């Protein structure tokens, strides 16, 4: 392009600087100052901000609720990965390989919960679990299993597992579509060759489909892990608020409670640093274990 250097830099500045400034102020600065806050004892008013070194971190290690919140987060990660991946893979294979006429209908329906607000999903499911009116207890009663009916979200043992179902319900569609994208990129000739060699449909699935969509599976798992560790607290907040008796607190909802309900902002920031470190570590470790040579036939 015909233009002077000065003009080019002016244009670059016009394109980049306003955006970067806002990004720096509203994203980078808060993240770094979150790290900084974690070394203070601070209830929010400016007078009472006291530097206390690593005291918040020591408190974190000694806090009996913290290990539970971490366990709860990883419980959600593991159950969601297993539940979503099995169902999404099953639906993706069924909708691509089996030549079902109404496949687009299923695709459209299964994806819809992905764009529903967590508030709507959470409230809907809170009602589904409602002890007296809810669908689950009514259903159990209907088939004669009243003994299994319980106040799902009010039960310390069952509250956390009860949060898995809505998360799977809301998550499947996206990952199903990602896997469908992978499957439809596989050349038909592989299946034809496999069929000539006498491979059954199961064998074709294990030997052809699965290895060839490994990249999509890997991305899906990573994505579920990241979004759960960084965002599981939203559905927790809507459905149980961390209760009963802290039985469903995850790291993020505990941070919210410490910082914005009890005004321990310094300690809240420390929990935030822990979330950041755990989530980055988990992703790194996962990427290492899921490394697998790209399959080409």
């Amino acid at each position, binding site marked *: 392009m015909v233009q002077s250097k000065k003009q080019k830099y002016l244009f670059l500045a016009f394109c980049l600087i306003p*955006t970067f400034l806002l990004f720096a102020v509203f994203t980078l600065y*808060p*993240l770094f100052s979150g790290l900084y806050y974690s070394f203070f004892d601070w209830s929010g008013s400016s007078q009472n901000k006291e530097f206390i070194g690593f005291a918040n971190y020591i408190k974190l290690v000694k806090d009996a609720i913290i290990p539970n919140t971490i366990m709860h987060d990883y419980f959600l990660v593991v159950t969601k990965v297993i539940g979503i991946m099995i169902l999404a893979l099953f*639906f993706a294979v069924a909708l691509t390989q089996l030549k079902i006429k109404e496949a687009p209908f299923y695709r459209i*329906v299964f994806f819809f919960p992905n764009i529903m607000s967590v508030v709507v999903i959470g409230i809907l499911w809170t009602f589904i679990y409602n002890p007296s009116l809810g669908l689950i207890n009514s259903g159990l009663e209907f088939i004669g299993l009243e003994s299994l009916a319980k106040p799902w979200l009010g039960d310390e043992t069952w509250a956390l597992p009860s949060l898995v179902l809505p998360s799977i319900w809301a998550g499947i569609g996206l990952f199903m*579509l990602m896997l469908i994208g992978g499957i439809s990129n596989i050349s038909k000739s592989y299946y034809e060759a496999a069929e000539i060699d006498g491979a059954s449909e199961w064998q074709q699935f294990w030997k052809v489909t699965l290895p060839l969509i490994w990249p999509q599976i890997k991305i899906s798992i990573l994505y579920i892990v990241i979004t759960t560790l960084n965002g599981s607290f939203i559905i927790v907040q809507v459905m149980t608020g961390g209760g009963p008796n802290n039985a469903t607190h995850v790291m*993020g909802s505990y941070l919210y409670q410490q910082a914005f309900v009890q005004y321990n902002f310094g300690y809240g920031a420390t929990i935030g640093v822990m979330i950041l470190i755990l989530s980055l570590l988990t992703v790194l470790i996962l990427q290492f274990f899921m490394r697998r040579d790209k399959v080409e036939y």
Partner: protein
Amino acid sequence: MKRSVGQILGRAGIRIPLILWTIAVLYPIFWMFLGSFKSNAEIYRNPWGFPESFSLDNFVTAWTNYNIDTSVFNSLIVTVIGTVLTLVLAIPTAYAIERIQFRGSKALFLLYISAMMIPMVLGWIPLFFLLARLNLLDNIYGLAIVYAVSQLPFTIFVLTSFISTIPKSLEESAAMDGMSPYMVLWKIITPLSMSGIITVTIMNAIQFWNEYFMALIFLNTSSNYTLALAIDFISSEAQYTNAWGTLFASLVIAIIPVIVLYAIFQRRIAKGLTEGAIKG
């Protein structure tokens, strides 16, 4: 090739889980619509069936007694300002990163992209005090700015890949004709990447319309509540007032715009979300 009886049965059998999951997805949503027409007494009597009559009382109550009208308006403002601001900020940056050679363009792109993987919850505490200092706390315009910046990484990511598909020759010939780079960006790049712009705008709009947690932290007066907060408030009140019908009506109000957008742009939304996730 002949198919055995077992295979034919297998084909029929495969539909059973598909149909069951369809019911699992649609029934709660239908039921929410049905519940919004029932009186509270009827909800207790017959929580999961059809309403006796289709009364709009719940909608009227939600709209007038629970300030849903204000919340709808607030959500609209946040969504519109948020999406427009995201575009204004993201289009020039996406263009510069994709098409103009400068030192550090790769690093800048990586910086934006990696922000998608960082848990923002850590930043929300300082952001809370920053907004307070800027007088933007408990302010829907402040929230709109926060929303816009939070979707910048995703938007820049999608737009750079769209802009990269535009042939370079178009810009070059325009520049030959003496068009300034500002005009190239405005008159050539923006219209040609309209498809990508529409996709990200719909995605961002749904995101902002649905968002709950940042609104919970950054807003606290009920007259500033967005729809998600207002519904959450009605829901926690319903534990005591049992105003379930009103709650369902407000859920329906919240979900209808999303259903309409999905009905029109189903393909775009599905494509946008999967591509956004694949960034990895």
